[in-house]
């Protein structure tokens, strides 16, 4: 109930500035619609549906699955993702991916050191070879000292 109401309210609050922005793009006329015409219609729809949710909320929703919440693991996972984005081009794909996978296997999934290291190196190497050499996707090599032409 509460969730729907919050969602609905959020939707209405979102629709207002976006609707104004659409207005700003220029609505044109029904004969010759401007760039803002369609977005404005969409924001109207969002506002209307948001209001409907606030007025007629559904019963409470219970997220399926799992008992505990592993916030720590989630935090680590998100941190690795952030690291990946920052390090991909400077450090190159193999190194960055290898590190990401290592942290994931070892700390997010709790596998032992040897398995994590092995799996990380293997997966990073295989995917790199497959995509860069076989499929010709230019993945950044970064700090890895590879022979020319790779």
């Amino acid at each position: 109930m509460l969730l729907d109401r919050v969602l609905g309210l959020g939707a209405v609050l979102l629709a207002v500035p976006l609707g104004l922005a659409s207005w700003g793009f220029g609505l044109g006329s029904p004969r010759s619609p401007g760039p803002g015409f369609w977005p404005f219609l969409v924001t109207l729809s969002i506002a209307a549906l948001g209001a409907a949710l606030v007025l007629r909320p559904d019963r409470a929703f219970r997220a399926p699955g799992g008992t505990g919440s592993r916030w720590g693991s989630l935090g680590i996972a998100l941190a690795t993702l952030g690291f990946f984005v920052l390090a991909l081009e400077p450090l190159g794909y193999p190194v960055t991916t290898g590190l990401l996978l290592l942290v994931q296997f070892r700390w997010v999934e709790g596998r032992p050191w040897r398995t994590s290291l092995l799996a990380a190196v293997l997966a990073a190497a295989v995917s790199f070879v497959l995509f860069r050499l076989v499929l010709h996707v230019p993945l950044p090599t970064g700090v890895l000292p590879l022979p020319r032409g790779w």
Partner: protein
Amino acid sequence: MLLHGFAVALTPGNLLYVFLGTIIGTVIGVLPGLGPTASIALMLPVTIGMDMVSALIFLAGIYYGAMYGGSTTSILVNIPGEAASVVTCIDGYQMARQGRAGPALGMSAFGSFVGGTLGVVAVMLISPLLAEAALKFGPPEMFALLFFAFTCVGGLTGKSRARGLLMASLGLLLGTVGTDAIHGVDRFTFGTLYLQDGIALVPLALGLFGMGEILYNIERREESGSVLQTPKDLLPTRQDWKDSWWPIVRGSGVGFGIGILPGGMPAVASLLSYAVERRLAKQPERFGKGAIQGVAGPETANNAATAGGFVPLLTLGIPTNSVLALMLAALMLHGVTPGPLLLFKWPDVFWGVIASMYIGNVMLLILNLPLIGLFVQILKVPYAVLSPLIIMFVLLGAYALNNSVTDVFATILFGIAGYLMKRYGLEPAPLVLAYVIGPMLENNLSKSLILARSAGLSLFFSRPISGTLLGLALLVLAYPLIRRCLGWGGNRPKAATPVSGAP
């Protein structure tokens, strides 16, 4: 004539091309970030050296294969391979979670086969007639059809129609981001260059579906259990066949009908098939929890739509989506001018392609059935090992799209959004589907309004086809209200039950 076509298609060289094409297509369909459009564009130069029939056969094989491959990842890991497979995620993945990945994959392959084959038969038999009928679909009719599809999107998940439509509307909004096609005005780009092209489908879908699911499972994992139950059967049961029979038949019809229309995307076809099956099912509440009809129907429809798309291409020279536009380019590269004369001037091309589509379908079925066993083995790997690998896959796919770290960043942001959505019971499928059809909705609306001049909105209702479709759409929207007013039923949408229950 068809026999001649088979003679052309069954030469060893062409058979090889069909084989190669379908394999490459399947791999591409499975890999996120590489859709059929991009791969056909990549392969186009390769085909210059081939003769024209072989080239078309090869490219058609890729297209078909990609349709098959995209559903594999949808079912196994809830990552749609392309827009047409988004709908398969809904029930297909749930089936996998219940240990029924084998039947899901099997029925998906079989449905695809039937849809593709029946589609080809229809192409062969009634091409000229169909082409004429399709021409009657102008912008107002397309808008009405897409609007009808949009209203179905809202009802996809059944927990709450308003919520579904809200998600869909947000999807429409996301579709407006970027430079407006008609006026060249930047909308919602916040001054960044990245957003001028709009939000790409790949980061959106990979993030919301793939990354979101992974993040959610990381947060919610039970210590011992695995997310996916060990697969029980490999093949569909008798009950599955009984349940899927009609959805497959209907899916073929719906899919082919959508495919021949301009802008007839397999994604729209799969969506409408899902809506139809849900509406007609004896137990609609099972949809969203692993109902095999939710896999059989849409998968059949998207392959039938793929076949249907060839009708306007081969008979009128009109490509109805971007993949077929590339095929048109391929034809023209080889000196063929598609159009009403294609059949007469280059019968080899027409019949050769038709015959190869038959063969391609058979080949894909044969290829995929043993692969089911292999794919199901993948599921036996503990999720703790799969999860980081899937993350790597997703990030790789996102980067491979445009060599852009920004795409990866966008995928991660959408992943976080997807996680939050899953946590609070919001479905990503309506959002992504609406995002895909949004630009076409707007385009057709604008064209219709310009066409209408002073008639304005009444144009939609004065034309018979669009009037009917819009009427249907409004009925669908108003249905809950009508039921309440007339005191029928009185079923409120059921609250979600835990998904890990037995089927």
